[in-house]
Structures are given as structure tokens and as C-alpha cells.
């Protein structure tokens, strides 16, 4: 298993600002992903965070809006840029080990945009 720490756990932000969410894992992991969970909705994959290279984004998500970094095998950041109220969601970091087929999730970062 993996212990995942996300910061901040929650925040209230003003429209037009940007916020960076951090994901720290207690062990080296192969795979890191960022998911979004909009209020009352299911989870949607934003992107795969690739170590040392640009993230791979899913349809409907772009780097300018959700820049992602992954400098090593235990850490990643997701930035939500130029926020609007529609970005109010829980953002979850997820990690896995290649070949195991299993993912572990952080407790999420709940963002409210006013």
C-alpha cells in the first residue's frame, strides 16, 4: 500500500486566482494520476503525471488550465489556474505500482471558488 498526503486539504479561493495542490507519497510509485470529483459527481481523470516529462491529459483537460509537475517518484503537484466557480471540486491524487492494477487515493483537496 501507499500513504498519500495531499495539501491543502481544503481551501476557499477567489475567482481568477490559481492554486497548487501537492501530493506526497511515502514510497516510490510508478504511476501518479490526478482526478476531479465535482459536487455530487463521480471521479473523472484529469491527467497522468509523468516523471520528468509533460503530463498526459484526458479529453477535456488542458495543460494551460491544469499544469502538472512530477519531479520525482514520490511527489507531484496540480495547479488549477485562473479559477472560476465551476472549478469547485475535490481534487484527488492517485498512485499505483505498474503491473499491480491497483490504485491508492489521497484524501483529496476540496476547493471552493467564490
Amino acid at each position, binding site marked *: 500500500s501507499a500513504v498519500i498526503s495531499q495539501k491543502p486539504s481544503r481551501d476557499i479561493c477567489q475567482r481568477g486566482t490559481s492554486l497548487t495542490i501537492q501530493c506526497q507519497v511515502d514510497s516510490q510509485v510508478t504511476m501518479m494520476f490526478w482526478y476531479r470529483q465535482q459536487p455530487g459527481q*463521480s*471521479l473523472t481523470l484529469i491527467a497522468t503525471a509523468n516523471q520528468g516529462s509533460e503530463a498526459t491529459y484526458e479529453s477535456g483537460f488542458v495543460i494551460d488550465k491544469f499544469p502538472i509537475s512530477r519531479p520525482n517518484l514520490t511527489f507531484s503537484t496540480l495547479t488549477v489556474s485562473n479559477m472560476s466557480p465551476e472549478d469547485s471540486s475535490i481534487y484527488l491524487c492517485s498512485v499505483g505500482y505498474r503491473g499491480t492494477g491497483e490504485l491508492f487515493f489521497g*484524501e483529496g483537496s476540496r476547493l471552493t471558488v467564490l
Partner: protein
Amino acid sequence: AQSVTQPDIHITVSEGASLELRCNYSYGATPYLFWYVQSPGQGLQLLLKYFSGDTLVQGIKGFEAEFKRSQSSFNLRKPSVHWSDAAEYFCAVEDTGFQKLVFGTGTRLLVSP
């Protein structure tokens, strides 16, 4: 593209009664299937998973699920529900080889006294 359907948005079960949450998937090959639980204000916890082999899989907290290929289903069951089981339950299928999960819309379980 693969998809997951959870037809029940809400389910209310009396404490001590049995539970079955439905999940249907659409996927061309043998899927990797998961059930996760999300308690209020918490992240997701893996209840159980199916990769291959025995179609009845046991998980944590007394949950089990049965994979039925003919029905494209992976229903979650528990023989006796406890009040602490009240939570949101998500079924998910993996894009095999990429470890990206596609989630269903979730079923919110309410437990009545």
C-alpha cells in the same frame, strides 16, 4: 471506450439487512474491476478487486463481489449491513495496462436503524 454503470443513485437498507449494489461495465476484453468506498470527507478506500480467476472475490469489511461475464456485471454484496457502512460506493474498471480507472457514478448507501 469502456464505461461503468451504477443504476442505483441511492439505496436505503436497514441495519442488519443484506445489501447488493449493482454495477455493469462495458469493456471489450477481460476487465480489471474494483469497488471503492468513500466515507464523508474521506478519500477512496479499496474494498475489493477482480483481475482473473475465481469470480467471487472477498474484500475488506465483510464485502464480496461476483464477476459475471455473461451479464457484464460486478455486483457488490454484504450479508449484514452496519450503520458504519453508510457511504458512497464506486465501481470502477481499469483501462488495462494503463492503470487508469473509469468510475461509475456511485451509489449512496443510507443505513436506517
